[in-house]
């Protein structure tokens, strides 16, 4: 099927559907890697994960093994293909750590944290014209960081990150500003120790890394789907009710932010660690959260109110969601295979935080989200179920909800239509570029 035929839209009828082969086809998956994941900015990791010189962490992004390291000489973040320039072995073989140098175990070629090749056993064997400077680790073509979020692109000609982020920037800014207020509020002259990177937000230790036997685009749909909350997460809302939380359906809005990015912003019955107390948190954190809320609203006005009171699922196309609801999670989606994805979730928290608030944050996060939570397992079930349905012979999935809404509601599907159109545009434009 031609990429142009994968979406059917009939405006007068308010009908929008995509063909389910987009969830199963090997050829489409290969095209996605080539034309989307090799062209866009992709989220890699957070600066706080490698605060000190020599700190490194390993990643797979767009199916490519990479690692990022903080340079021993400049303190900048460097991102390299995780492959020895000699014969290809991966040279960073731990998830994270600190290293002065990186030595390939196979033939002991050694690189420094700037990627320079500094050691080759029996170097004379390569002859007099061998030039070590030509065989440093290969950096990704582009790397830029925005307020601690590190993005990469495999396309050297990609636009600058700040332009790419478009309307998503103001949301990253607002969230980070609120965290700055929260961190200052909590810090008693403490905060991050000197010498390394410091910022108002940090990724906590511990990663939720799990697999879903479904196409990655199903998790994109799910992650900003306000419509599924009631039926899919009934047991979570039951839990809230059992904690004397007054549960009412979430309401809110959706905004398209350009370049495929979008956000839903909505009310929630649950509490938020920055900063909305609810009875599920227990009395011990109430005074702290109320004071923090007042401070954020005092300093940031309306934006502060939104950051404290409302929830946001912010999509940064194509592989990152900032899930700012029960707590704040970075959800990174890796399109491993047509019918299998890997998900990595990290918890973001203000770099200084009162211990009672931290406790509430951690509990709030794992109660809802993550593979052991009361809610996420049911999302995984839904996605795997949709994936199986894609083989049923029923060919089209419907995304017409809210088609005629003037103000797009958070429970509509315009954000998904926008995502699928962006996806299709990229596949189609890519196909016009002559190959070879």
């Amino acid at each position, binding site marked *: 099927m031609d990429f142009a035929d994968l979406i059917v839209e009939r405006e007068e009828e308010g009908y929008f559907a995509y063909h389910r082969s987009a969830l199963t086809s090997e050829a489409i998956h290969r095209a996605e890697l080539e034309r989307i994941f090799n062209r866009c900015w992709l989220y890699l990791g957070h600066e706080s994960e490698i605060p000190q010189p020599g700190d490194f962490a390993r990643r797979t992004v767009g199916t490519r093994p990479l690692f990022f390291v903080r340079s021993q000489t400049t303190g900048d973040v460097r991102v390299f293909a995780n492959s020895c320039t000699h014969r290809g072995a991966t040279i960073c073989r731990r998830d994270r750590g600190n290293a002065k140098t990186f030595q390939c175990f196979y033939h002991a070629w050694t690189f420094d944290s700037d990627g320079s090749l500094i050691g080759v056993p029996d170097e004379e064997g390569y002859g007099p014209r061998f030039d070590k400077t030509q065989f440093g680790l290969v950096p990704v073509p582009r790397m830029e960081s925005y307020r601690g979020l590190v993005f990469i692109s495999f396309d050297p000609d990609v636009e600058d990150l700040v332009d790419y982020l478009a309307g998503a920037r103001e949301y990253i800014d607002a969230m980070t500003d609120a965290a700055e207020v929260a961190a200052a509020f909590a810090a008693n002259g403490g905060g991050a120790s000197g010498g390394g990177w410091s910022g108002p937000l940090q990724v906590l230790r*511990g990663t939720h890394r*799990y697999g879903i036997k479904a196409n990655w685009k199903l998790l994109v749909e799910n992650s900003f789907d306000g419509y599924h909350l009631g039926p899919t997460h*009934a047991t979570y809302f039951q839990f809230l009710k*059992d904690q004397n939380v007054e549960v009412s359906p979430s309401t809110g809005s959706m905004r398209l932010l350009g370049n495929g990015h979008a956000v839903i912003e909505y009310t929630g019955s649950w509490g938020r660690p920055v900063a909305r107390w609810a009875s599920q948190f227990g009395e011990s954190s109430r005074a702290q959260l109320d004071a923090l809320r007042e401070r954020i609203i005092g300093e940031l006005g309306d934006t502060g109110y939104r950051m404290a009171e409302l929830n946001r699922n912010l999509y940064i196309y194509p592989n990152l969601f900032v899930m700012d609801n029960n707590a704040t999670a970075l959800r990174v989606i890796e399109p491993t295979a047509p019918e299998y994805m890997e998900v990595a979730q990290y918890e973001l928290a203000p770099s200084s935080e009162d211990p009672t608030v931290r*406790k509430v944050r*951690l*509990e709030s996060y794992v109660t809802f989200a993550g*593979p*052991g939570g009361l809610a996420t397992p049911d999302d995984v079930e839904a996605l795997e179920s949709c994936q199986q349905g894609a083989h049923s012979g029923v060919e089209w999935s419907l995304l017409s909800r809210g088609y005629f809404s003037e103000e797009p509601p958070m429970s509509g599907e315009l954000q998904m239509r926008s995502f699928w159109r962006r996806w299709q545009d990229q596949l189609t434009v890519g196909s016009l570029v002559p190959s070879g």
Partner: protein
Amino acid sequence: MSREAPVLERPELRPTDVTRAEVEDLLYLEAALLDEWRMEEWLELWTDDAEYVVPTNDNPNADPDNDLMYINHDHRLLKGLVVRLLSVRAHREYPWSKTRHMVTNVRVLGEDGEGVVHAEAAFLVWRYRLRDADSYVGRYDLRFRRVGSELRLKGKRVTLDAWTLAPYGAISIVL
């Protein structure tokens, strides 16, 4: 906060009169109740100050007060989990999976200053459901307390041996 892996602290222990057979009996009962989905009876095995903790695969010595865990449940949350698992709207576990909890290599380590008995064991939990065939392997760090004449579970820390949860999508059962 340091990003270095935390070190798991172990308290000073003295010999205990709780026997391995007693600990095994409780663990086998727990396994049977879980495998038979007798969740309310399972909850009764726990003390009121229960702690059921599962660190992430990449941070086995995690500090639950500061680090992201998979599961960090006190008694209130355990009760919430039981309510969920008995609900027909826990979609990941309805229909229920078939599970088999195997517990072995049990060692009673002693008791601490508060009379809490410490033990560890190896486990293997199989989970079958629809097309899923999942296995979870690792170590239990266990805490028990005598309540009257009975031994009750006070703490269960589940350290997974796998380096990642993937390809599995959830820990939707009790390990």
